[in-house]
């Protein structure tokens, strides 16, 4: 149990946090044939775009309403109208996702109202699915923007039909289908792993959003200005037909609840899928749901994870960790490391979450990487996103990159840390970092201990 403290500084130094509009935009990027738009100045979009390009090493569809001084004061309706028309004619998306920014929120644009008027004015837009979410930059953080966008997608696009329980059970369509609402901390690789686990129980999963379809780094056969792959509109609409919703990460609770409110599909939130017990529970739920016993393959993988934990625990025990991440990633990694015997010595995050108080450490600071650097003295391992690189260099602490952005390493999309297999590989990856940086004994290693001993109980001189 941790005390949650907020940094008292006026100035944030080396931010850990990113803004929520781009979190929302990333969620929209997990929808098929979608064009995400930030309602703000063109810089808001440019920064987000460059960030994702460098992280995923993929073309990123992200547009802007290109607000300027005058249009901000006058209100952005014309800009939204022009943006929608331009995108509709040029990119022809099936869905448009709009997230507001600090600029347009400060002015107070009523985008929902604008959209109604615009749809009346342009019949060609009347039925185009448009999802709008309010995400001021000066509130909350990246994962909040993601979570809000997913909730809004559910509220706007899922078909509103409630089945009585009996009818629902007889619904042939939904018998083998589950919804998965993954948090922003899961990679496309994680989603692929989960899809495979779920399929092993004879279930098929609708992921919302599905970055494993759009940003997993594949080669399409033609150029596409919109997202290419991801959850289809048809799949989203039919999410009410599923038997259950699996929400991965506490941040997805609201979206899962919204889906239940709308369609009566029950949900369970899995706060993490990294770790032995966490996955035991996950697979039990899948087994109960499907009536299929846990397949041999996963019994084997579980056994491999147990073995990895046994082999690795020597190197994890009492290791001091400096950890900086958004709440759900913080919880997944932090709780797993605590499982392995590590001590979370310095823990910094970006935004509020019910998981913070549950963290197995003394204190969780909502702060920045300067705060983390100050608390990290004497730590054996630093885990944060790529911006930790300067700090790692200064402190000399071994550094594992985790989270978004990861702009100076390859394969960010394909890192897997969920499931037995993902956890097993994480044990190896982190364990190897400990091994590589182990302190070798030297003749002087025990000298300070001797001094201390001599000081406390002086040996009589001969």
């Amino acid at each position, binding site marked *: 149990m941790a005390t949650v403290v907020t940094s008292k500084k006026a100035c944030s130094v080396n931010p850990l946090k990113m803004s929520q509009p781009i979190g929302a935009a990333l969620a929209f990027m997990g929808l*098929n044939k979608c064009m995400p738009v930030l309602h703000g100045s063109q810089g808001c979009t440019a920064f987000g775009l460059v960030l994702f390009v460098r992280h995923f090493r993929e073309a990123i569809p992200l547009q802007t309403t290109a607000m300027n001084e005058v249009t901000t004061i006058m209100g952005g309706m014309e800009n939204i109208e022009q943006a929608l028309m331009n995108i509709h004619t040029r990119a022809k998306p099936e869905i448009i996702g709009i997230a507001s920014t600090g600029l347009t929120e400060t002015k107070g644009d009523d985008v929902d109202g604008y959209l109604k008027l615009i749809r009346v004015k342009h019949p060609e837009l009347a039925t185009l699915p448009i999802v709008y979410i309010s995400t001021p930059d000066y509130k909350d953080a990246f994962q909040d923007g993601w979570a809000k966008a997913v909730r809004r997608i559910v509220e706007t696009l899922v078909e509103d039909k409630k089945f009585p329980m009996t009818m629902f059970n007889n619904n042939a369509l939904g018998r083998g289908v589950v919804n998965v609402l993954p948090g922003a901390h899961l990679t496309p690789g994680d989603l692929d792993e989960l899809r495979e686990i779920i399929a092993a129980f004879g279930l098929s999963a609708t992921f919302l959003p599905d970055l494993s379809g759009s940003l997993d780094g594949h080669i399409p056969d033609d150029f596409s200005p919109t997202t290419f792959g991801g959850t289809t509109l048809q799949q989203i609409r039919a999410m009410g037909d599923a038997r259950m919703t699996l929400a991965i990460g506490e941040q997805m609770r609201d979206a899962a609840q919204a889906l239940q409110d709308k369609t009566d599909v029950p949900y369970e939130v899995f706060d993490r899928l990294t770790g032995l017990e966490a996955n035991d529970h996950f697979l039990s739920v899948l087994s109960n749901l499907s009536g299929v016993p846990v397949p041999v393959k996963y019994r084997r993988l579980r056994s491999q994870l147990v073995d990895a934990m046994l082999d690795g625990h020597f190197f994890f025990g009492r290791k001091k960790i400096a950890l900086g991440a958004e709440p759900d990633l913080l919880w997944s990694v932090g709780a797993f490391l605590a499982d392995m015997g590590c001590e979370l010595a310095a823990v910094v995050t970006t935004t509020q979450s019910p998981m913070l108080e549950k963290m197995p450490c003394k204190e969780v600071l909502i702060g920045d990487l300067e705060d983390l650097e100050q608390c990290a003295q004497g730590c054996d391992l630093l885990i944060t996103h790529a911006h930790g690189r300067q700090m790692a260099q200064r402190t000399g602490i071994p550094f594992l990159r985790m989270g978004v952005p990861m702009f100076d390493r390859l394969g960010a999309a394909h890192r897997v840390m969920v499931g037995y297999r993902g956890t097993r590989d994480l044990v190896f990856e982190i364990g190897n970092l400990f091994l590589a940086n182990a302190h070798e004994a030297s003749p002087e290693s025990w000298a300070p201990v001797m001094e201390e001993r001599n000081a406390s109980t002086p040996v009589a001189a001969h």
Partner: protein
Amino acid sequence: MSTLSTTIQDVFNEPACGKNQAKGEKERKKGCTKQLQPGAAAGGCAFDGAKIALQPITDVAHLVHGPIACEGNSWDNRGAKSSGSLLYRTSFTTDINETDVVFGGEKRLFKSVKEIIDKYNPPAVFVYQTCVTALIGDDIEAVCKAATQKFGLPIVPINSPGFVGNKNLGNKLAGEALLEYVIGTQEPEYTTPYDINIIGEYNLGGELWQIKPLLDELGIRILACISGDARYREVAYSHRAKAAMMVCSKAMINISRKMEERYGIPFFEGSFYGIADMSDSLRNIAQLLVQRGAPDELLARTEAVITREETRAWARLEPYKQRLQGKRVLLITGGVKSWSVVAALQEVGIEIVGTSVKKSTKEDKERIKEIMGDDAHMFDDMTPREMYKMLKDAKADIMLSGGRSQFIALKAKMPWLDINQERHHAYAGYDGMIALVEEIDKALSSPIWEQVRKPAPWDTDLDVADPVRSDTGCAVVPGAHAPIQQVKEAS
């Protein structure tokens, strides 16, 4: 905001810019760039431009006053290198919250400046205005003035909020801030007849250091580079230079012109990209210095260095001629870099099959025609789809562009080379040109192309849809390869 709009109008009225002077009064007021089109715009904002222009000043604390987006989403993402302080890579932002938006962020800004000074002791703090803080009326000029008085060191307001325009405007507004608050505020320990300023060079990938040894050899001192690898004090005493070279086309023309007006420092516009351009630049620097009183013999020494370096460079390019003869390049970049690189590429036998002229001036275009002939393919606004098609149809062998368009080439399974600001290689000067040709050769001759372009053995009929994945949300676009999805499924 009235002072900001006056500054913007002043920047729009640039007498040293030929393109600007050719415009009518009314047109000039509208500024240099086309109105941005919602839903079809790309590129950074004025804040981005200001930050790009100034952040290479290495020992300054760059403080962004605004919500987390402006700094948190973008920091430490450029390749400007430092030979000294690394403070410019430390990120500072007021990260304003909802309360600040309601009650104003000036107090937080002032306190932030104090925290930075206490902890990092920089010679100066640059405070960048952003959209939200401009909109709520935070007066950063007043805060900076008060902070300068209170703390006794320069706290410089950079008033270039994103929503006033594009990156180019931001470059110029940053220049205005330097002219207003920094340049001319300190004196160098000594001056020489060989002191120059290099304006608009950001030392990306360490390019300034490709040039500097040659200048050192000639005894020419870079009094200040604005702003690559610069220290605050160097910029502050840059007004004592004898001559200046303006590098990045029109980005900092206002600094060059106003320093000429105020301090009598003559400047020329030149480029370090390409062998002939590099030689011209050295020649121009020497000539300007001689005009300003440096001994005549500098000219002869410069010519000697040019001859030596050119001979060496061409000799080093020779082996590439055979390998690169007839290779076709699609060059997608802004303005000046295009035509200065073109000549050198042509020299090793590379053919330029097209170039973008979106950011180029009229003179640039004339020059491209001059170099590439009348059949030069100049694209004003080439869409990504057109670029993709050109590469896919193998009408070009390689694309040279900025990082954001790289995937257009890579997804067409065609070689690509980064020539924009995020690049890791330095291409300036004689050595840089050889490095560029070497990189092109390396990209073109990579053994991967043959393998990655080959279809999978079982993938003969492209029209077969994938039955396995079709229900799981991975879109099947007309003509899409099935095998990729199969590979995913099997993993």
